[in-house]
């Protein structure tokens, strides 16, 4: 009984962390068709922003939920203006340029924070279920992922800004004809996506020791989840995070964590081979 509860929590946690890791990239790629390979570094910077803010005496939740997204969003804004806006519509070129950016950020972080591991302790204590100890922070991550997905859906579907953004991504010329500036909307969307990445990095920061290169651990997973998700933003994100999270945890419990990771990657290869356009090209078609 206890063990099944623990496994359930672990599975939900694996899915939730995949959703968090991929959300920012899903917005940037799913809507703008920009593959941001610096996504992992945006998360890394979110983590550093949190740790720095906490070090300056800011409350840890304010640092995670407000400071980090703002800081990373602003960095994203600068990046969009300087580099990415010249490359819209050139998929491979954006990929390469953002890869270069990721190296730049790693270099900068190394110069500023040094090549050492930093971290903060988790702000929520753990508790025991029967004979097992559960990290209380895992629940926070699960809740945050659910809130994030609902908020994303509400903003994109419910608000005028979301409507305009979605319209512009579909037909930027029509949006321009109706009097909206696609340039501005792209800028805002990229800001939004970067802020999400920063938020995810901040939320996950207490769980990992942060080094300048820790973005690399996220980018592959995020990339795989988003690509496997396919054209629908939220349905794709949730469905592919769920399938990969399940595969990962099943093999982690059955064999070992390393095999779990490898199983996730192999599942991704098989999935992409079977559905080259992603899950939502076959299921949940036309959903947001």
């Amino acid at each position, binding site marked *: 009984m206890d063990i099944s509860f623990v496994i359930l929590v672990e599975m939900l946690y694996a899915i939730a962390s995949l959703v968090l890791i991929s959300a920012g990239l899903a917005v940037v790629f799913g809507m703008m068709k920009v593959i941001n390979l610096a996504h992992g570094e945006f998360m890394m910077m979110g983590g550093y922003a949190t740790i720095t803010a906490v070090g300056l005496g800011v409350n840890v939740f304010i640092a995670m939920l407000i400071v980090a997204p703002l800081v990373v969003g602003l960095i994203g804004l600068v990046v969009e203006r300087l580099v990415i806006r010249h490359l819209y519509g050139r998929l491979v070129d954006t990929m390469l340029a953002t890869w270069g950016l*990721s190296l730049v950020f790693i270099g900068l972080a190394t*110069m500023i924070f040094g090549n050492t591991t930093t971290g903060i302790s988790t702000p929520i204590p753990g508790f025991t279920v029967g004979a097992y100890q559960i990290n209380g922070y895992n629940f926070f991550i699960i809740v945050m992922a659910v809130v994030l997905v609902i908020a994303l859906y509400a903003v994109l579907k419910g608000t005028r800004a979301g409507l305009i953004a979605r319209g512009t991504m579909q037909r930027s010329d029509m949006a321009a004809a109706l009097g909206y500036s696609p340039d501005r909307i792209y800028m805002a969307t990229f800001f939004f996506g970067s802020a999400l990445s920063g938020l995810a990095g901040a939320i996950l920061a207490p769980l990992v020791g942060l080094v300048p290169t820790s973005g690399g651990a996220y980018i592959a997973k995020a990339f*795989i989840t988003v690509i496997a998700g396919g054209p629908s933003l939220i349905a794709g994100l949730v469905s592919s995070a769920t399938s990969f999270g399940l595969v990962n945890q099943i093999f982690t419990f059955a064999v070992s964590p390393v095999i779990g990771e490898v199983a996730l990657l192999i599942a991704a290869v098989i999935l992409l081979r079977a559905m080259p356009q992603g899950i939502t090209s076959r299921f949940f078609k036309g959903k947001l």
Partner: protein
Amino acid sequence: MERSAKRDVVVTLIVSAILIAVMPMLIGTYTLTVLVIYGMLGLSLGLIWGFGGILCFGQAAFFGLGAYVYAIAAVNIGESTLPMILAVLLPGAFAAVLGAVMFYGRLTDVYLGVITLVVTLILFKFINSTAGPQYVIGDARLGGFNGIPGFQTLNVPGDSGAYIWGDAYFYVCAVALVIVFLLVTWLLRSSFGRIAIGIRENETRMALIGYDVAARKTVLFAIGAAIAGLAGALFANWAEIVTPNLFSLGQSAEIIIWCIVGGLGTRLGPIVGAAGLAYLKFLLGQQSMIDNTLIMGLVLVIFVLFLPRGLVPAVGSLWHASVGRTARRRPANRRMRRARHG
């Protein structure tokens, strides 16, 4: 056609002979050896990406595989000739299987990138986790993140006591690069190469003309991997240790940067890019003011933004413009834009 091919070979041989003779006076042969090896690695991606339109994010996988195959085989056999051959064949075979899975599934573009990236990651994670004593192939312990040290390095075929090292090893690597370069030249001049370029330009058209696009892409992919495997084996000999870092994302990134900076769709570009940037990195490594990664990143961003065709084509067109001839049109240059979206 026949005559220009011959002239090409002669020019290549003369230029490379001069370079092999002159360069050791400028840079130490130890450094030079690794530049040559990186040049070969760059050429391997330049072939499949620049001429085949296959953007492989995991060329490092084949490089690392070549190095590991060599190391494992060398430990078991104790002589270097067969391991060298295996280090070329196995990555090629692996790429053929992987390529068949991808190309017969009609994967292109980003999806291709993701799969190759993922395969590299799988290898990296797997090799990294093999620290325990139960991971043994023959006499060779995989050694996890510590890698495999102390294997038999290159020797004169048939005589396992006669090691080739130092200056002699540099000449072996340089000659190997020249041979690979000539083979690539020959391949691109053959009908196979021309059809590969045709596929890069327009896959549907080539399929409709009646060529088996998937099979041809698979073969090209395997050839590229075999060259990368050879480079990996040479690297293993140079470093005298193989570690999982050979498979890392950073390594894959670097190969792509070399190709972009040097110039895609040229044979020389990736070699120049690889050797040049590796040397730059070597020089930068001697100072600690500015982080190395930062500069590599900036170089990539700046090239994508301002010089997306790369150095070699840019210098080439500059040369033609300044000399003022109505130079031979260089088709490779015109095609650059599209090639990168294959």
